């Protein structure tokens, strides 16, 4: 069969149900194979939309997302989703067309050195040089993408090789001698960690996206509640521990709660699970958690002691290690009363500094209230995606996520325009769930074209634009740190989002009254097909609390 037909067989063998993509000259053979390939293909309007949709699909399910693009500009349009998937450890396989081998290196039409351009931002990539390599490369790509620390893998297939005839036999073995992720965790180290936790007077569990990726939420809850360990999660880890919960401190980091950040600051032992001590978490590194010793559990050994030296390093995935840690910890029978003083301190912070905002005295919608209203309208049970900026932080703060894979956003790269296509991917993956995107009026326009895809495929995403007419987070920083001089942050009344929605074949709505907002949101959610809602919110609201960049947790403001 043709190599491209073998690609279809490989994808089906990997359990792929749906792919996102856009055809072009160099992947015409692939698109010919889609005609009878037995796979659902969703035609996106821009390759970046396809890439983010594949990410949304992967984040909602834990399965590998797949995106296709042609050579040259098709492939370069995928760079942002690839980099995004790398930063947030999202399993996605990207399959790009390439010019014919005889044109390689000649600056041929729509030729780009896709392997070279993407090399810094992929977990791995395969440049196909012989057509018979293709099936193995596809399977190895899936294995690498989903195992260990997940990430993006790219397969670049020259057009002439993709249409060549090959003897296809299902690939049953992988040949990756240099790739052996360790997931189990060293038993002796785990025992040491259990002892340290039993000895700690002021412990904190700091959990990240690695818990979600390892499907280790149940293990995290079970371990944390085996004693009264306070738990905080990163932006990527939200939902890994259910909110609200007596032991839940809220998110930590730049816009985290005071309870979480102060607990980190005063902790004597921090148990980091699947988290990477990003600068948005640590603030000023030299003053980060100055009294703490660190247990660091991560499937990627390079993360351990990268930013903060670990005292007890454990290489393994969160699921395996937490399960073993629970057994070791129970065997010690630690004294739970030792944490009483610590909880008194934490409760003090919680009472004194709850997440709060000054609500409006009239009908004006405060952005924080908009998130609370969405929580109410969806019963807290929606999958929520977001773009990047103030609305993202308010969504993270005020939509209490009860389960993992309900909160889908771009953390590491901070990609504006992520939310709408990611919602599209999540909605395709989870047709029985309500999928909402909380978007910014700046961000949403960076991939608004995918509304056409949603309208054509009747993908019922509900996009709520938190419209303040500004690039809000940048405006906030200009207000706070650049003497209030606003430089190119005002987006005004453009575009008319209701008309935009209608032009794309979606339903457009505009909400401006907080008193009817919950009901209005329910109405939007019950409307069939994609809906784009322009929610007019307070224009100059700031996201608080906040640790100013490069400062310590104690310096939180707002």
């Amino acid at each position, binding site marked *: 069969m043709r190599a491209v037909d073998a690609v279809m067989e490989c994808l089906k063998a990997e359990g792929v149900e749906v792919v996102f993509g856009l055809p072009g000259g160099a992947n015409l053979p692939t698109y010919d194979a889609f005609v009878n390939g037995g796979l659902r293909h969703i035609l996106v309007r821009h390759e970046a939309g396809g890439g983010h949709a594949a990410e949304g699909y992967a984040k909602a399910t834990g399965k590998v997302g797949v995106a296709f693009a042609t050579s040259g500009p098709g492939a370069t349009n995928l760079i942002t989703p690839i980099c995004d998937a790398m930063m947030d450890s999202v399993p996605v396989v990207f399959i790009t067309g390439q010019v014919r081998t005889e044109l390689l290196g000649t600056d041929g039409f729509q030729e780009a050195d896709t392997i070279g351009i993407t090399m810094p931002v992929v977990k791995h990539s395969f440049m196909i040089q012989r057509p018979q390599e293709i099936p193995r490369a596809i399977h190895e790509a899936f294995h690498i993408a989903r195992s260990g620390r997940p990430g993006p893998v790219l397969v670049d297939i020259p057009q002439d090789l993709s249409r060549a005839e090959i003897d296809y036999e299902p690939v049953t073995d992988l040949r990756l001698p*240099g790739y052996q992720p360790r997931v189990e965790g060293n038993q002796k180290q785990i025992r040491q960690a259990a002892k340290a936790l039993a*000895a700690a007077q002021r412990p904190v569990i700091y959990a990240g996206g690695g818990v979600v990726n390892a499907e280790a939420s149940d293990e995290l809850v079970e371990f944390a509640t085996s004693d009264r360990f306070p738990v905080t999660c990163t932006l990527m880890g939200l939902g890994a521990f259910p909110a609200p919960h007596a032991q839940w401190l809220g998110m930590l980091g730049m816009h985290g709660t005071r309870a979480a950040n102060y607990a980190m600051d005063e902790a004597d032992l921090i148990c980091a699970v699947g988290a990477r001590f990003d600068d948005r978490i640590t603030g000023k590194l030299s003053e980060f958690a100055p009294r703490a010793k660190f247990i660091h559990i991560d499937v990627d050994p390079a993360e351990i*002691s*990268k930013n903060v030296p670990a005292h007890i390093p454990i290489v393994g995935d969160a699921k395996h290690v937490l399960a073993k840690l629970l057994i070791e910890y129970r065997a*010690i029978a630690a004294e739970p009363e030792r944490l009483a003083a610590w909880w008194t301190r934490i409760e003090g912070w919680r009472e004194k500094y709850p997440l709060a905002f000054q609500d409006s005295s009239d009908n004006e919608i405060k952005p924080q209230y908009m998130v609370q209203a969405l929580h109410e309208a969806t019963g807290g049970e929606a999958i929520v995606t977001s773009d990047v900026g103030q609305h993202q932080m308010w969504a993270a703060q005020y939509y209490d996520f009860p389960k993992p894979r309900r909160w889908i956003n771009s953390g590491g790269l901070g990609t504006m325009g992520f939310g709408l296509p990611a919602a599209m991917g999540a909605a395709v993956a989870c047709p029985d769930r309500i999928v909402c995107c909380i978007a910014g009026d700046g961000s949403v326009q960076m991939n608004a074209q995918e509304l056409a895809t949603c309208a054509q495929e009747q993908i019922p995403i509900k996009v709520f634009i938190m419209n303040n007419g500004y690039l809000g987070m940048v405006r906030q920083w200009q207000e706070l740190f650049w003497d209030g001089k606003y430089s190119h942050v005002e987006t005004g009344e453009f575009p008319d989002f209701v008309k935009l929605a209608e032009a794309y074949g979606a339903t457009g709505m505009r909400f401006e009254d907080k008193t009817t907002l919950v009901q209005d949101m329910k109405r939007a959610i019950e409307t069939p097909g994609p809906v784009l809602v322009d929610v007019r919110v307070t224009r100059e609201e700031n996201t608080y609390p906040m640790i100013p960049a490069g400062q310590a947790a104690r310096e939180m403001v707002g």
Partner: protein
Amino acid sequence: MGEPGTKEPLSLEELEASTNMRTGRKHVLSILVENKSGVLTRIAGLFARRGFNIDTLTVGPTDDDQVSRVTLTVDGALHPIDQVTKQLHKLINVLKIRDLEPADTVARELALFKVSADGTQRGELMQIAEIFRGKVVDVTKRAVIVEVTGTTDKIAAFEDMVRPFGLIEMMRTGEIAISRGRSET
């Protein structure tokens, strides 16, 4: 619970952070890689984007044609070596990395020196070359080419000696290294 060497009960004060420190010395990393296209670019790119400097780099075949060896020297005063090796290990095509212990390693470099030397200076230059067990591989009326192998220090010392004659150019291969004893590098 309780195994040899573990103090109980454990107090947090006893815990020490894993070393993320600069070692302050040169490290020779011997890296086995799959012989596939783009591997060297992946390694070089990794060093560039993580801000690690490569002091010397050599690449060559091994006795297995599927596998190549990259020998890299890195300054442990500038970079945390454990972070360098852990990042390298993440490359799928990297099979094995050894951070060679200087005392258990034979490291050699080949250098070619083109030195200006007319008839009057040639004899002295050849004597110096002999002391360094170098070989004169080319002689013309006004220049001599000397081949020297040895450790980096020895080659640097030779360079110091011949520089006063007028060093026209010098080429060095970068170090290759092999571990002493029976075990494989």
